[in-house]
């Protein structure tokens, strides 16, 4: 419960943060809200030598209407995502999903960029932005690049980000005219999902993201294909686990997870929220 010793650097700008991380290499970690990293450090499962604190980069905290998409600064707190009028109007699924992250205390500290960069398959926002077809913007020593959410998650707690790259922005297409559903199945309100589902649908087009159904967030493409092919929601939902390789843990067997995914995908796609 007490982390190993580490150095602490506070960055004044994104460029400085990237240069600090470049300097220390693999031993350095960005610290934003700290709600994923610090618990791992307290359990000594992570022992970075240097923390580069980027929490003061307030210019990376914003939510902007960019016409066909909404741009969200990586340091935007979950609380602000949850309560953004722009998101509630144009991407209500993401605002709603953010309201289910942890507890109010967590939502006031944790950031959307930190959650996505941590790439935890059990977190709500990676799978939700994946379902929404988001694009992530990363900044490194040689400038910025865009990474599609569907290319981002490469393994358990692993992403396409280079060690000296920082996630700076999340671009989420508007879901105008779509219905959406978010199903978080957990034991206690503040827990991670045992299984979670984020889904939107517009006619025969839909996007379905699965939480905690494998080593990465999962895009349930078979469900989307079935819906596109005119299948009923009930039939499509049976394909929920096609792309997933769920693990057993203390809360659920893999078989139970697959069952839950089907039930929750069905409920999420049947939801009439708009």
């Amino acid at each position, binding site marked *: *419960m*007490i982390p*190993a*010793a580490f150095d602490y650097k506070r960055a004044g700008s994104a460029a400085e943060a990237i240069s600090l991380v470049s300097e220390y290499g693999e031993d350095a970690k960005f610290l934003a809200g700290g709600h994923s990293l610090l*618990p791992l450090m307290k*359990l*000594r499962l992570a022992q970075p030598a240097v923390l580069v604190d980027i929490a003061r980069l307030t210019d990376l905290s914003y939510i902007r209407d960019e016409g066909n998409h909404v741009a969200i600064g990586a340091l935007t707190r979950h609380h602000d995502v949850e309560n953004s009028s722009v998101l509630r109007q144009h991407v209500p699924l993401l605002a709603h999903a953010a309201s289910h992250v942890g507890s109010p205390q967590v939502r006031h500290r944790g950031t959307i960029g930190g959650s996505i960069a941590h790439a935890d398959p059990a977190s709500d926002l990676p799978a939700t932005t994946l379902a929404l077809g988001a694009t992530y913007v990363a900044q490194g020593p040689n400038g910025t690049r865009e990474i599609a959410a569907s290319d981002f998650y490469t393994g358990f707690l692993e992403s396409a980000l280079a060690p000296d790259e920082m996630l700076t922005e999340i671009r989420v297409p508007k879901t105008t005219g779509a219905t959406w559903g978010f199903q978080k*199945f957990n*034991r*206690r*309100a*503040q*827990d*991670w999902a*045992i299984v979670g589902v984020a889904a939107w649908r517009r006619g025969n087009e839909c996007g379905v993201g699965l939480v905690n159904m494998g080593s990465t967030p999962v895009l349930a493409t078979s469900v989307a294909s079935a819906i596109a092919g005119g299948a009923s929601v009930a039939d499509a939902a049976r394909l929920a686990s096609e792309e997933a390789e769920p693990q057993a843990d*203390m*809360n*659920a*067997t893999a078989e*139970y997870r697959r*069952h*839950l995914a089907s*039930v*929750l995908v069905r409920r999420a796609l049947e939801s009439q929220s708009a």
Partner: protein
Amino acid sequence: MGGSILGNRVLRKEDPKFLTVGGTYVDDLLDEPLLDGALHVTYVRSTVAHGVINSIDTSDALAMPGVRAVFTGADFGLEPVPSNFNPMVTRTLLAMDKVRYVGEPIAAIVSETREQGEDAAETVIVDYDILEAVVDMEAAMATSTLIYDSAPNNVVFDTLVLGMPDNTGEAFLAGCEVVARGKFLNQRVAPCPLEVRGAAVAWAADGRLHQWLSTQHAQGAHGPIAAMNGVDQAQVRVRTPDVGGGFGAKIGIYPEELLLGPISKRVGTPLRWRETRSESMMALGHGRAQVQHVAIGGKRDGTVTHYQLWAIQDSGAWVDMGAILAPFMTRPMASGVYAIPNIECRTTSVVTNTTPIVAYRGAGRPEATAAIERAMDLFAREIGMDPAEVRRKNLIPKFMEPHTTAVGQTYDVGDYETALDKTLTTADYAGWRAKQAERRARGDARQLGIGVSVYVEITGGVGSGEEAEVEVLPNGKAVVYTGTSPHGQGHVTAWAMLASEQTGIPIADIDLVWGDTDLTPVGSGTMGSRSLQQGGNAVFVVAGQLVEKAKSVAARLLEANENDIVLDKDAGAFHVAGTPALSKTWADIASAEGGISAKDNIAVPGPTFPFGAHVAVVEVDTETGKVRHIAHVACDDAGTVLNPMLLEGQIHGGVAQGAAQALLEEVRYDSDGNPITSNLADYAFISAAELPSVTVVHMETPTPRNSIGAKGIGESGTIGSTPALQSAVVDAVSHLGVSHIDMPTTPEKVWAAIQSAR
């Protein structure tokens, strides 16, 4: 004032402090001069469940920054000490030859900061020969792997050894028209006080040892600490700062706390010790942990005539209080509230390679209640009768004289049917049954379950009375000294109310002193729901004695006959009956005497038996197995109520912990004995979001066993709620063919039960 303060919703005197600046816990003793320059102790703990220690290498740790000393058991020449409950079982306070659970302390590091100690602890190298881990309590009885080589087997306490009769198996139930059987797990849970264990020690210049301890019983720790340090008890002062919860797990003193005095003596500085939450989850005692084999038999008309229980109690890796809860708390309460003419109950306690079991809120009685209440539901299901009706048919009729059950336990007073009726009516039991029937008829995915429990428990089983002193100072204010030890219960308020009732001194002017062996050397602490009926009762009686003593002083000052003196409680002054104009206040009397006090140890004739009924309503999502606790009605008759707000607080907290056991919480180990629930993310500690608002039904049946008619309330909520919740979950899916689901009723277990019943 006018009228009695007793029975009123008096706001807690202690809360302004707790809600503003906060309490003063052991870690907050930063300005204590005796602790100036204190170093920090960190314990190195076993990472294996069962193993022989070949060597302990502390050389790297000694070289770590800030480390002043590292001690193993050998450095202190520790000798094996026997368990208080089974002398064949012995251990050293730091493991030397063998480790028996993950988390067992092996070495102590003294460092300048806690963080340095934590870093150094990682560098101590312990070489083990790993032994087979005995994790399952039933396997512990069968295996040839002995956890204590000094004992003949892993059974460390059994009612047969106490000379009690064995169960007679099938023969016992031979005459029954109907028999229902079950095997229930009353799972291991973690007490999880918000304040984990902590202590501080200092040897003063005069040679006295001062120890501050987060405990429920400073006086109980006093003797062991003195013995550990080889000094007379008078040379030791134990003090209890504010304590952030105990739930039974802080009754006894632990090795980590006992060793601080000797370590401090060796290093020559004061010391502080505070465990982390992860350590606390492994090394603070756990609770419950029984496997129960039950058989219940009777007639098709609903009359229960036979009940047989074999409770196997997991004692964990040490024979602590947990080992004796089954024979001395579960067994006596086996009959519950029912008039069952034939009962057999055997209990068997075993050691396993797991954290030792201690007392935890209810401590043996929730286990007794869960067993009989689940058995009643099985019986009701077998004969197709409503669970509430089966209970009513078998209740012991109202009694105001002592009643003895078939298992030999005598209860003080009881009116179980009224408790059941009030609860069913308030809960609208019939209404919920109608709604349940509608949902079943529609085949809804979300089904309703209604669970009923009726219970009686034993409180004040610890201690035969309590000491109290009430002192009035020359300024007219009072100080009450008590042998109980509040850690959330509200004694500061409650004891002031009792003293105020007798003396007329306003509660704002009454302070409470507890948990300091210099100021309150005699006391049995706070445990077993004993405090009000013994400690509060003593305050009430002794305050009355003080009034009589003050009357004689007043008589002298007023030059009157003592028998003519009356106390005007509204005025807080004494006068001759009929002539109130000429009076002496408490301040006058105390000033004349240089302070006036009364002190006595007030005995009670025996324990009391609170009872009540709970109805829990849940909604179960039959597609996923998820349970939502949507309504709860609790009737807990604790005798005469001193302060309804304190009572309701105890019920709310008790229901929360009971619901937590029924629905969520379980300490788990893997097959090698590694704990897998050692933090509050993995261990499903309940929160307000998982609970409904609890409806409290008031009922007061005073006990004749003390002056204030009070029975215990601290544990009742836990005892009544747990089986009500569990039965509600089963009830929600019983129409699908499910007859039992073990606790905690997790979503996957509920879902799997539905699948296998289909």
